[in-house]
């Protein structure tokens, strides 16, 4: 979709990837693009190599229950040379949300994707070591999902409280 603004990166992104860019806009001064789950790896590799977005500033999950598609993964990219930022959002639905890893493009994505897996249960396909990073191994469920009961406790030792 062609953006209705004059952000050069968003225009180039829409021209190059066409239907894979579902929406693009300027949100409170930041360039934002909603992209299709299948194109995540290609788009981010292209932005990194062709548009100098050498830094992955952040990667996180969001749960929009009861909306469907329920989950979002948000990538914040930063072009160090000219100080430009772009935000990419990927909407993921279903009981087993899954998206391609970008840990081969940005080594920092390794731990960020592990955290997103730990907290939201979003699988990053192709990740070399996708296991819990904050919670302990026997922990069941993903605590930042909105349907995780707020009162639920899973102590390693001691009484359940």
């Amino acid at each position, binding site marked *: 979709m062609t953006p209705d603004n004059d952000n050069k990166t968003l225009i180039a992104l829409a021209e190059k990837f066409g239907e894979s860019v579902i929406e693009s806009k300027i949100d409170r001064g930041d360039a934002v693009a909603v992209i299709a789950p299948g194109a995540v790896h290609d788009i981010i590799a292209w932005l990194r190599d062709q548009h100098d977005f050498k830094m992955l500033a952040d990667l996180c999950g969001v749960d929009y229950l009861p909306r469907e598609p329920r989950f979002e993964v948000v990538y914040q990219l930063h072009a160090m040379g000219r100080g430009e930022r772009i935000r990419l959002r990927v909407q993921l639905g279903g009981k087993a949300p899954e998206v391609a890893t970008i840990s081969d493009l940005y080594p920092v994505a390794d731990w960020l994707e592990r955290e997103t897996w730990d907290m939201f249960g979003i699988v990053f396909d192709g990740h070399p070591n996708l296991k819990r990073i904050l919670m*302990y191994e026997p922990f069941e469920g993903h605590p930042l999902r909105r349907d995780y009961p*707020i009162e639920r*406790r899973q*102590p*390693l*030792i*001691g*009484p359940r*409280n």
Partner: protein
Amino acid sequence: MALKPLLGDDNFVTTRLDQVIGWARKFSIFPYPFVTACCGMEYMSLSSSHYDLDRFGAAFPRFTPRQADMLFVVGTISHKIAPLLKRVYEQMCEPKWVVAFGVCTCTGGFYDNYATVQGIDTIVPVDVYIPGCPPRPETVIQGVMMLQEKIANGKQDW
């Protein structure tokens, strides 16, 4: 050479063994600081010369639980670190006391969530609770004095 009595004929006191041991023990507390969170800042303030914890004989932290007899649990305890806290407690020699420093160790504080232990008394027995977020050094000093009272008045094992 014969020793001269210093206090004349009255140089003796009568007491109970429990009391004299308790009196000695209450001024010889070796704390083990189990510091995990922001209360540690207030613990540093407490340990500095201004508040002078050495008045209570509790100034010298031992960084091995085997040499300590007071476990100072300072800061939020998550379920992940809870087994380590219990293990540190079990390594300490008797007699030993536990002080819960700050509201997170007393009840979990405002961390009423999936990650936090809702009070360390669900894991180890606690002798003195010091509430506050974080507690002022004066509050902690009062807690230490209450612990001294408990030590002095308790039944002593030796």
